[in-house]
């Protein structure tokens, strides 16, 4: 019984206050005041937006680690990367919108995908390269092969934690991009549920975000 009680105490201290915050978020979603002036069904979940979103996340999830694997931790100190990372997603979308040739029709999913990658990729490469361990003097002294191997091992450990920690932020980025480019998607779904007072739908979103937090925290073995 003692190990079980100890485990419960450790888990309570590790997750308890955080779960309380998520509980408050859930309460806010479920008690969202106000009613819509005309009764309306909750918006349908944008299933059509799911495959492109998953494709974008998969592309980002592969491209960022691949670039970091090639560039190493030195990328975190590159000024060019900092310059690419600096403009917010709002600005990338605005430039795409302004430069989109009229003959191509309204900017749809390809523009959204491009804006998403432009906004997210430099920041994620910076995040991952900062998290990589230093390479001087070792494995630098062991040669490029050992260097790549060490990077691969470090990235393999970082990858799930990175994905779980960053997914909520990408969701916010998609909300901004979708609103500016006029593309319906997962981010706008949150906004639509707020405007239609779909409390249950919002609560499901909060629980999904809480689950991501829980996963990323469970993976995070270090006491930061």
């Amino acid at each position: 019984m003692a190990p079980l009680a100890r485990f419960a105490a450790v888990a309570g201290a590790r997750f308890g206050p955080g779960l309380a915050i998520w509980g408050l978020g859930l309460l806010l979603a479920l008690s969202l005041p106000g009613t819509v002036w005309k009764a309306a069904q909750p918006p349908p979940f944008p299933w059509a937006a799911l495959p492109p979103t998953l494709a974008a996340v998969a592309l980002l999830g592969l491209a960022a680690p691949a670039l970091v694997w090639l560039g190493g931790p030195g990328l975190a100190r590159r000024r060019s990367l900092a310059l690419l990372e600096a403009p917010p997603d709002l600005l990338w979308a605005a430039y795409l919108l302004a430069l989109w040739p009229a003959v191509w029709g309204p900017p749809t999913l390809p523009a959204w995908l491009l804006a998403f990658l432009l906004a997210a990729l430099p920041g994620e490469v910076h995040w991952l390269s900062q998290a990589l361990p230093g390479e001087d003097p070792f494995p630098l002294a062991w040669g490029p092969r050992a260097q790549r191997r060490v990077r691969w091992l470090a990235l393999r450990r970082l990858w799930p934690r990175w994905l779980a920690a960053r997914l909520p932020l990408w969701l916010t980025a998609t909300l901004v991009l979708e609103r500016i480019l006029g593309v319906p998607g997962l981010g706008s779904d949150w906004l639509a549920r707020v405007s239609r007072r779909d409390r249950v739908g919002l609560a499901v979103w909060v629980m999904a975000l809480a689950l991501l937090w829980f996963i990323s925290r469970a993976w995070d073995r270090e006491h930061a």
Partner: protein
Amino acid sequence: MSWRLVFLAALLLPELGLAPFQGGLAPTWSHPLGTDDLGRDALLRLLLAAARSLGFASACALLSLGLGLGLGLAWWGRRLESALSALRGLPPLLFLLPLAATTGGFTLPVTGLLLGGLAAPHLAPALRVRLDTFRQSPAWAAERCLGAPWPSRLRRWGPYAWTQAAALFPSAWLSALWGEATLSALGLGPPPGRDSLGRLLAEELPRLGSDPSPLGWAALAMVLLLAWISAMGKGEA
């Protein structure tokens, strides 16, 4: 940090006067970017909006650093670690949307308080790393062992802690700047009548592709310039 604080004064500047009969003028020598629909000089409006956005970002950054410092100190016992991690996991925008719907929009001070408060948990870990060096120093241990009173400890270590916090000011400033711009572009920022870069972008973005105005492009260029100045200021190699 100091040049950014100068812009706090811009928060007190009055709005430009309206001249509806001179609206929509093309760029001339007297109005280099032309005038907007309400007859305001577009260049003046852009400069005023930029200065006000920068001042607003400075105020938010000061607030979030103060709060972050408090959280960083409180975090020493690690009792708040899990709660702060959860606060960092909830994207601010997704939290602000229901809140804006509940309250029917935010005023400028409320937006500042919310942005500053929501940025503080993100600053706390970096602050804690910086403060750990003096927490583990022999001088701090000696003060604790000798039972120095809190006011005396604060007088000695407070300025050091603030210097460490000030090093994070540029990143806090930048996140406040983008936070306000994003909220305004989504229509959730401060109410009309208070020009800011985000409000200018929100006004100009819808017609940027079809009817591009010099003001829209100038606002975009201004935001890009600010982003790059901040990135250069990070001291990258």
